[in-house]
């Protein structure tokens, strides 16, 4: 017979009444442990915030790029045409290609060094000459002003990439210096720009927009940027490949990119951040689930008479389980409702920062809000669901216990664990917490997080201390700067003409420096691989490079002309293995290269390869090195040598210190992980203390019995502490193993996602051993106060109702 429901409401009324009853029951049970519930809520809120932020960053980076691309009417494909007699014909050829809908962009562009006035750091920037009056009126395809305004025609003003401005600390209204062929040009920063044509890395030649008349005064032989919008944007990659082939037939060797490449760079640049956020969210969620388990265990003990009463009046075990699930789910939902929007807002702020400014960031945030709210909602519902499942699962066993047992009659009640070991002639009694999983998980999660954090910090420090681990063997990078008139004393040849130091002169300068122990030369070239319809960057190596310890991941490094070693992503994209042969093309020139192996390549997301100089010049006859990678003698100060080389170069050298500088996203994620480790560590300590206190409370009947038969307070306290320490040893072991696996997995994922390949964590075994030793001791110490309180209380006080 079906139970009657409220009159007139039928099945709905019965459901509503049942739900209300369960809510009352959940409140009566879980309300007895507000501290545990609060802790669970905190963990769940943190989890929801991190997962929501991770999902928004993951989804938001490409979405925000799309928004920027649409908002600025950016081209789908663009080409950099070099100065060439047939450049106009090449541009016309692009305009006439099938599939072209419009050509919104045609600008002169040159890569020139830029620095803040008085600043030490110089960054190569891609400087565009723009029609300032037209830009003020109509904007420029692919570029947006995010702070300040467009340059005023006729004024020495520039619009500077927002990320570059942040890196050089250039305020709007501040001064910057562009080193051009005709000397230095000092400009006022009129505003910041972001561009849909530039990758998000600060070392990727960020954009600077100059009025065209000023541009002409600094750039003697500019390239021409031609950007096209396509009828079918999805054809952009194929269009770029086909256009480069067509231009090569005209004899014009042009670089080209599509918006799809830029979108991939955006995802790449944010995937690591999103990954760290997801990892943190998962740890917080696990922590929250563990605390939920503990909260239910606590409630089951404290509220066993409520449970027995409920069972006595007809509450089924399934309803009891549902009450626990409902209560934990409700707390989880409240927590997630607070945490998830916080994560959404944090992601928006991140996004705004990534795209450089308040105005554009807010607008992109609005774009995300329009179609991107679901990650926050999904994170909230997921976290609440996880809380409900954890609560229901934890309450399941208790709910199934007999009603009489729940009443504590006949000595029944909660299950207890008591270990008894004989050690020689003396017994060793260990009181193990009733629900060992809770403190064990708390310890394991905190240890895993700490292990991951110290491993990350140790690895980053090692990379900075020993960049050779990443295939960086040099301390200084030297490049030549073209100037109008060679200012080197006594050198008057070619005065009045743009010129650079000859490579031999750079070699001589370096060889003469007492602190330079060696160097090799490099140049870069984008080549096509027709069989794979892909383009890769080729690094030509010249000079003293063969003896360097390249990080080879498979096969071997380049040894002779006619070979190429590839980065891991290039290897994957081209679908080749060591020993295979690939044909590469640069314009009309083609070369068949044998793949010697894979190596750790930091550049261009690993879509690159290295060849000997002879191979490079076969593809590009007459090529000159563009950079000298300088190794210093042991103990030499890089900054001193840098200044000395700058001085000896007489203004015609750019010298930068090299080494591993973690990307901003990785630095931020590292800080996030440190903060998260601290938060989870604090939560774990609270959870362990609270868990042990609750465990002691659950064991009060056993403690009372053991007191009655003569166990002393010291013995009881020690037995509890030893029991907790034993569990903590297991939790610590699990945590160390998990932390090591997480680190290995994290670096493997970072290697794969970044395309660098071969990144491996460097484990600080000493620190890990210290953590492994300290964690059980800390857990045992945490167990002593509650155990001592219970042990020293009069025997009938704790177990009075049972004895």
């Amino acid at each position, binding site marked *: 017979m079906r139970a009657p429901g409220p009159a007139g409401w039928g099945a709905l009324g019965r459901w509503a009444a049942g739900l209300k009853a369960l809510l009352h029951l959940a409140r009566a049970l879980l309300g007895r442990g507000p501290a545990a519930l609060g802790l669970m809520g905190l963990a769940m809120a943190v989890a929801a915030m991190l997962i929501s932020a991770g999902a928004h960053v993951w989804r938001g980076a490409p979405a925000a790029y799309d928004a920027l691309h649409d908002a600025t009417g950016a081209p789908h494909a663009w080409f950099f045409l070099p100065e060439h007699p047939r450049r106009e014909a090449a541009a016309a050829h692009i305009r006439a290609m099938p599939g072209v809908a419009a050509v919104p962009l045609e600008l002169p562009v040159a890569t020139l060094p830029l620095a803040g006035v008085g600043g030490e750091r110089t960054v190569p920037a891609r400087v565009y000459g723009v029609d300032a009056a037209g830009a003020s009126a109509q904007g420029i395809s692919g570029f947006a002003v995010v702070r300040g305004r467009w340059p005023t025609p006729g004024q020495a003003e520039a619009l500077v990439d927002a990320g570059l401005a942040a890196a050089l600390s250039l305020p709007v209204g501040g001064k910057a210096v562009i080193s051009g062929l005709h000397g230095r040009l000092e400009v006022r920063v009129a505003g910041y720009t972001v561009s849909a044509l530039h990758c998000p890395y600060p070392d990727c030649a960020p954009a600077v927009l100059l009025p065209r008349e000023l541009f002409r005064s600094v750039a003697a032989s500019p390239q021409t940027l031609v950007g096209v919008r396509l009828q079918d944007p999805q054809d952009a990659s194929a269009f770029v490949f086909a256009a480069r082939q067509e231009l090569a037939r005209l004899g014009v060797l042009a670089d080209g990119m599509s918006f799809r490449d830029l979108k991939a760079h955006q995802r790449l640049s944010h995937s690591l951040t999103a990954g760290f956020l997801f990892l943190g969210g998962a740890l917080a969620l696990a922590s929250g689930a563990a605390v939920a388990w503990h909260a239910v265990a606590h409630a089951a003990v404290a509220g066993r008479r409520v449970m027995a009463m409920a069972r006595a009046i007809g509450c089924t075990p399934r309803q009891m389980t549902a009450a626990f699930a409902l209560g934990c789910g409700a707390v989880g939902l409240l927590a997630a409702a607070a945490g998830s929007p916080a994560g959404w807002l944090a992601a928006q702020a991140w996004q705004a920062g990534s795209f450089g400014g308040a105005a554009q960031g807010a607008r992109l945030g609005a774009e995300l809000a329009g179609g991107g709210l679901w990650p926050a909602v999904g994170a909230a519902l997921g976290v609440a669901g996880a809380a409900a499942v954890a609560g229901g699962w934890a309450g399941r066993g208790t709910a199934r216990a007999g009603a009489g047992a729940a009443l504590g009659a006949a000595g029944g009640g909660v299950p207890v664990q008591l270990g*008894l070991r004989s050690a020689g002639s003396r017994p060793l009694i260990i009181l193990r917490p009733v629900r060992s999983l809770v403190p064990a998980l708390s310890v394991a999660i905190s240890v895993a997080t700490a292990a991951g954090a110290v491993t990350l910090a140790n690895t980053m420090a090692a990379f900075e201390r020993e960049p050779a681990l990443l295939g960086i063997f040099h301390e200084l990078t030297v490049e030549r700067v073209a100037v109008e008139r060679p200012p080197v004393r006594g050198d008057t040849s070619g005065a009045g003409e743009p010129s650079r130091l000859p490579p031999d002169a750079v070699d001589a300068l370096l060889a003469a420096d007492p602190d330079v122990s060696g160097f090799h030369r490099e140049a870069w070239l984008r080549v096509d691989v027709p069989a794979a319809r892909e383009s890769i960057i080729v690094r030509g190596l010249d000079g003293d490079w063969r003896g360097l310890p390249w990080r080879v991941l498979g096969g071997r490094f380049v040894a002779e002309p006619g070979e190429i070693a590839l980065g891991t992503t290039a290897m994957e994209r081209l679908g080749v293995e060591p020993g295979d042969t690939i044909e590469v093309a640069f314009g009309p020139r083609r070369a068949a290269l044998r793949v010697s192996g894979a190596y750790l390549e930091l550049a261009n997301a690993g879509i690159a390869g290295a060849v000997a100089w002879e191979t490079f010049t076969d593809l590009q006859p007459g090529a000159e090195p563009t950079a000298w990678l300088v190794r210093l003698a042991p103990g030499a100060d890089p900054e001193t040598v840098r200044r000395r080389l700058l001085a000896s170069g007489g203004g015609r050298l750019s010298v930068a210190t090299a080494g591993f500088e973690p990307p901003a996203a990785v630095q931020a994620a590292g800080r996030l992980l440190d903060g998260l480790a601290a938060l989870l560590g604090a939560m774990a300590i609270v959870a362990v203390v609270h868990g042990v206190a609750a465990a002691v409370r659950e064991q009060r009947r056993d403690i009372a019995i053991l007191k009655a038969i003569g166990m002393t307070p010291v013995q009881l306290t020690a037995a509890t502490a030893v029991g907790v320490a034993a569990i903590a040893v297991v939790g610590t072991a699990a945590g160390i193993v998990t932390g090591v696996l997480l680190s290995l997995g994290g670096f493997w994922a970072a290697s794969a996602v970044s395309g660098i390949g071969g990144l491996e964590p460097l484990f600080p075994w000493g620190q890990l051993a210290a953590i492994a030793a300290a964690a059980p001791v800390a857990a045992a110490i945490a167990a002593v106060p509650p155990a001592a309180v219970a042990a020293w209380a*009069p025997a009938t006080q704790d177990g009075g109702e049972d004895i």
Partner: protein
Amino acid sequence: MSSTELVVDARGLTKAYRDGEIRYPALRGVDLQVRAGEFVALMGPSGSGKSTLLYVLAGLDRPDGGQLRVAGHDLPSMDETALALFRRRCVGIVFQYFNLLHHLDALTNVMLPALLAGTPPGVARARALALLETLDIASLAAKRPPQLSGGERQRVAIARALINEPMLLLADEPTGSVDRGAAEHILDLLAAANARGQTIVLVTHDPAVAGHARRVLHLRNGQIVAGAAAPA
């Protein structure tokens, strides 16, 4: 210990429970002497204070006032550690609801006080098995309490109380949770122990149970109202 020696010497014991401002007197000046080898039954209705008196004698609870010596120990002056050692060495306690440890088997439950007292495990095991044999439950040694009947559990509890050969066995309604047949068996076991010289103080509200004792004391409103004097 000679049969004339006092195992329990209580004079003017008082004890009250408090619930906020309200005070509930449980013992109001109890005088009680029990000599070695006696079997004393404490009778009285619910709330008369008999269980409180038993807990005070066991060192599980502390009197508010009066003097109390059990097995030569001045209990009110002892701290918790000393009381624990006193319980371990001098008294055995049998509870109405058995209070066995559910996750240990019957044999280990019985062995536990001996192990706590430093008895070598082999000796403790042999002694526990002998006691279980005496109580006719040796075949149940490997079973855990939830697998035993009420009468069987109480016999395990009696074995646990006796394993350290205490000077005083205290039993709180030992037959209160078992059927009549089991109750008779338990009382016969206690009588047999007493016949071997074991001093016993038993709390009950059942005259039939009290009839097994050699001396019966009546408590009412926290005071002994009859038979307080120890026989010479």
